[in-house]
């Protein structure tokens, strides 16, 4: 890791230099309600400095809605008809600027499930993440409950930390170092800078409520006793069974595959699907393994908090709080976590 110091103006120059070889995206204020969302930017002044996360997670860059897997020409008798052609996206590389540590972590977590998926991995390959640490936590933030940190670096190429006058830039990967070099104008950080960043890190982490060892504790719990816990019924009674939580969740990654043909042009796409929808599991015969709402609500949480950790280690949640913020009926994953862990 290399640590640099860069001024605000310097950062603006970085972005301008990067746009020569990359598409640069950042959180911008898009709508009236104070929420930010991802959009292409040309300079630092377009980027929102609001605390907290964007409306949509960055999974839209990794699991585009929809993503074309193959194209084909549909039944016309031509020799090439109906032959699937691979369309691995070889578009321009891009930089996501101003990614929160929680969102960056989601790329790594989803990557555990998508290890063998060439489309996801191609998107990982061509997307560089410049993170910014969180000085302020929102009421819905709980990254420290699920193994993250407001200064977390997992998944990032660069982490920016705003200090009194400047930014400290931790270049965490080779890609990050080359980004800094391409940006130009950065000085190496001094020992004093490093010490200051370290104390900011500690302060930010201590300011948040933490739940250590969540993943370990959940892994050690008995699957069926969690599955049969008595709170699922009450929880699902409030739920309207929409997909707002899953679609806005950075670590909900389920998809469906379908062919679309318009005139003779066909494509096989994958698009977001949600385990909250009854049709997600319904067989052609009509039989449905999760036909009841309570089963679907439970599956969403159990997948994140038990099935995923049992298989891959960490919890499939980064504590960004979007599901809490956006749930129309205020279903709060922190309450589920508390219930499952048996803590107050």
């Amino acid at each position, binding site marked *: 890791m290399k640590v640099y110091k860069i001024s605000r103006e310097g950062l603006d120059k970085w972005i301008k230099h990067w746009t020569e070889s990359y598409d640069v995206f950042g959180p911008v204020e898009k709508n009236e309600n104070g929420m930010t969302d991802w959009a292409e930017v040309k300079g630092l002044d377009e980027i929102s400095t609001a605390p907290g996360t964007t409306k949509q997670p960055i999974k839209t860059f990794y699991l585009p809605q929809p993503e074309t897997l193959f194209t084909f020409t549909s039944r016309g008798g031509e020799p090439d008809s109906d032959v699937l052609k691979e369309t691995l996206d070889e578009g321009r590389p891009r930089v996501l600027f101003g990614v929160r540590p929680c969102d960056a972590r989601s790329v790594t977590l989803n990557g555990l499930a998508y290890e063998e998926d060439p489309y996801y991995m191609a998107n990982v390959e061509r997307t560089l993440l410049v993170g910014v640490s969180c000085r302020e936590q929102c009421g819905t933030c709980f990254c420290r409950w699920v193994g993250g940190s407001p200064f977390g670096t997992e998944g990032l190429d660069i982490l920016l930390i705003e200090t009194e006058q400047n930014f400290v830039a931790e270049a965490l990967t080779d890609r990050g170092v080359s980004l800094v070099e391409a940006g130009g104008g950065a000085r190496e950080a001094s020992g004093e800078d490093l010490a200051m960043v370290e104390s900011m890190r500690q302060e930010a982490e201590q300011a948040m409520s933490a739940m250590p060892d969540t993943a370990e504790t959940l892994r050690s719990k008995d699957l069926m006793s969690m599955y049969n816990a008595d709170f699922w019924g009450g929880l699902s009674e409030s739920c309207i069974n929409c997909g707002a939580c899953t679609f806005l969740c950075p670590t909900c990654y389920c998809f469906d595959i379908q062919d679309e043909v318009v005139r003779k042009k066909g494509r096989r796409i994958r698009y977001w699907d949600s385990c909250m929808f009854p049709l997600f599991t319904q067989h052609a015969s009509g039989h449905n393994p999760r036909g009841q709402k309570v089963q679907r609500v439970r*599956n969403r949480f159990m997948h994140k908090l038990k099935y995923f950790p049992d298989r891959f280690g960490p919890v499939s949640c980064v504590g960004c709080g979007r599901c809490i913020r956006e749930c129309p009926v205020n279903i709060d994953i922190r309450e589920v976590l508390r219930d499952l862990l048996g803590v107050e």
Partner: protein
Amino acid sequence: MAESKKEQINNPYMPFPARIEDIIVETEDGNLKTFRLMLERPEDRENWSHVPGQFAMLSLAGRGEIPIGIASSPTEKDGLLFTVNKAGVVTGALHSMEVGASVGVRGPLGNGFPVDSELKGKNIVIIAGGFAFTTLRATLLYMLANRRDYGRITVIYGARTPGMLLYRKELEEWQKRDDVEMHVTIDRETQGWTGLVGFVPTVAGQVAPSPENAVALICGPPVMIKFTMPPLEKIGWTDEQVYLSLENRMKCGIGICGHCNCGPVYVCKDGPVFTRAEVMKLPVEF
């Protein structure tokens, strides 16, 4: 270029091009047809290797994909067999296709029966109902081709009517053999039928051999499996000896898309074959 070529080969969503070599209408209602598919490219044929009990995605551009159990044994070298029930968009389209048409095959997927490990040296009981006999046909043929690796082989197979039995010619051939014990049954007395009459669970209770050094492979509708267990348990069979194949809805086939999870397991990747003991530890989401 070499790099992208490599990725192309590794794309797990890319089906192998195949051609329909033969179509056999299996059942009197015409709803089940067996398609014999030949992979188009010699290298695909060369590289293809599956285990009985595995499945593949059949792909029709413009319609989509559907998971179908592989009905042919790896020991058969004349293409791949898929017995397809006409139920949805893809299977409906497949049923209207003719010999020579192009389809895609993506697989093999899933785990399959442990024919070369746990099942070796065991007495085998194959229990099937309706059109769930497909991957068990593959298994039976594999075992007959490697006959010395297995002990006694008993097959209990039932359908509603004689006309709903799959692979009827082969059933007759197997019945003539002395190294496999066949019990083919239909639900109700029918004119011209001289074989067994009765539901699979009843017949299983009557003819199932001792559980000693034996395993049972059961495929069929959930209700058949449910009622087949008690008579087996009565004569000492345990859940560890019974293998089942689950049929959850699948899309990616490689354990990512999330559709087929049954609690912590992905049926497409960790299954579809599980011992009943394993299934009993899972939430009932199948």
